[in-house]
């Protein structure tokens, strides 16, 4: 009689699929390329340096730890993706020690200390960026102007410029109007496109898109290297969704809860009352799109079940709303994800157990 096969017990997540983790990580890296290329196109050499240093430092850190683990895990690509994402979440003018230290922290402390890929309970990328934000607040706000912007126009990321304006007491109609009065120079293309859209498409609704909406959408503004172009990020995300590399639950719950909270409560901190918050400014600025599709969907640090993923995404939306409207640390996305990661074991406990109980009832 054949011996029964030994029962294999391994740590979560137990993902079984046709793709190896190698293909998975390289697909993610490939889907980040359009947005990364746009950032490099805008900010040229400084952006390339930041990306290179972040990725290089992550790979070096991974190589260093392989001395201790006696297992070279450089080839699985996860260190490269972590480094690349950290670079994409950095402002292009950041001094190079910031991405280097953030990547090293992400790999050495957050990932490898806990046993490497699959055993880290916190998203290394988000944690690395939060570490850099807390440590080098000045270095993490070294913005560069986009090419073609007028001389002397403000080279600050839209969200940070808005926060400074509100802190100084500005209270006009909308965020983009505030930025315009702050000397934000929008491109000529923005004016032409918005003029055409307002005249031909929106004239019957009475809605008028303010100057800067198009620049903000395509990412023709100062900001972090990889967060700028929403269409290019969505292109990569659509590919990932199509190939089932990521699931829709986390980004959809994340974005919809954040949008709902922004619309309903977004006007309250400014004294405008309920249902007076803006939507597209919040959605197109900061790293929310990058974070929702590429950081929050990390299989290792998100819940195991689909209901769990919905809860996780929704809690990220709530956290981000508070961090963005009341916080003072960057745009809040990495911090929201780090805090959300702390909830994941709890969410898993609730959802996985409930599933098992239902199964028992049915049987």
């Amino acid at each position, binding site marked *: 009689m054949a011996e029964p096969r030994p029962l294999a017990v391994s740590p979560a997540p137990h993902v079984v699929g046709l793709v190896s983790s190698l293909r998975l990580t390289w697909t993610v890296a490939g889907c980040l390329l359009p947005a990364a290329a746009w950032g490099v196109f805008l900010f040229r050499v400084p952006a390339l340096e930041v990306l290179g240093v972040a990725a290089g430092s992550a790979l070096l850190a991974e190589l260093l730890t392989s001395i201790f683990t006696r297992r070279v895990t450089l080839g699985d690509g996860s260190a490269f993706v972590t480094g690349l994402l950290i670079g994409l979440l950095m402002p292009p003018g950041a001094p190079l*020690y910031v991405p280097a*230290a953030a990547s090293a922290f992400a790999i050495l*402390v957050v990932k490898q*200390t806990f046993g490497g890929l699959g055993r880290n309970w916190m998203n290394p990328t988000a944690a690395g960026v939060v570490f850099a934000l*807390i*440590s*080098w*607040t000045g*270095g993490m706000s070294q913005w560069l102007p986009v090419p073609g912007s007028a001389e002397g126009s403000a080279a600050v990321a839209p969200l940070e410029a808005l926060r400074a304006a509100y802190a100084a007491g500005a209270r006009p109609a909308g965020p983009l109007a505030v930025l315009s009065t702050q000397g934000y120079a929008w491109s000529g293309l923005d004016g032409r496109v918005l003029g055409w859209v307002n005249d031909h498409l929106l004239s019957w609704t009475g809605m008028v898109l303010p100057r800067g909406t198009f620049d903000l959408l395509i990412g023709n503004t100062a900001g972090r290297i990889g967060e700028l172009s929403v269409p290019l990020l969505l292109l990569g995300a659509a590919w990932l969704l199509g190939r089932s590399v990521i699931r829709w639950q986390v980004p959809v719950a994340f974005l919809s809860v954040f949008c709902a909270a922004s619309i309903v409560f977004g006007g309250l901190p400014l004294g405008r009352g309920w249902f007076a918050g803006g939507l597209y400014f919040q959605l197109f600025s900061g790293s929310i799109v990058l974070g929702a599709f590429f950081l929050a969907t990390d299989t290792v640090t998100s819940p195991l079940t689909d209901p769990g993923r919905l809860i996780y995404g929704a809690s990220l939306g709530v956290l981000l709303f508070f961090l963005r409207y009341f916080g003072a640390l960057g745009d809040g996305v990495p911090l929201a994800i780090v805090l959300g990661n702390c909830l994941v074991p709890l969410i898993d406990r609730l959802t996985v157990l409930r599933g098992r109980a239902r199964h028992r009832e049915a049987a």
Partner: protein
Amino acid sequence: MKSRSLARRGILNGNPVAMVLVGLCPAAAVTTRVIDALWMSVGVFSVLLLTRVCLSLLSLLRDGESAGPSADLRGGEGAPRIRWLGALLIASCLTASFELVLLAFAPEESASLGIYAPLIAVNCIVLDRVEPAAGGKHIPTALLDACGLGLGFAFALLLIAAVREVLGAGTITLFPAGTFGGTIEIPGLSSAPARALGYAGGGLICLGYLAGLSRLLRRRPVPAAEEAGTA
């Protein structure tokens, strides 16, 4: 246990902070500057040592009496409670004395340690030694045990503080002496330190690494009872 190994236990395998994981509160809170860690260690060391010696003396004293009003102290029904009360009173008095000394000779340091100086009275390392001390009347043993624990605490605290201050602030703060202002600035790091390590979270990360590394480096496994008792 041999006296030498008794003293060594507190520093290495039974290190209160790194191995037994007690006294973590001050270990995370007052390790942002080396000088704070130094004073905290001095406080815990002296209070621990004197408390243990006092308790040993007390147990000698009550053994000397055969009967009388102190029957409770000798092991009656209420003995443990009385013991605890006495030990806490002694520790509190000694802590208050330490605080006054600190206020008199290093007032800035007293402000810097804040609530953690008075809290030495209920420091887990001190409390942890009350029960064994109540039974032990052998003064050299008590001295060695307290020395080992105190030095182990100081060792762990100074190590954490050195790492946190060097990386998190780019400085090393010590006593001002002569022309030396008391603060060593590390070139390169002091202009852009990793400030995250100066926060409580950074302290806990350093503490975790210290605990993990000391488990890697320990010579023999910690007895199960020791770990279970303090989890």
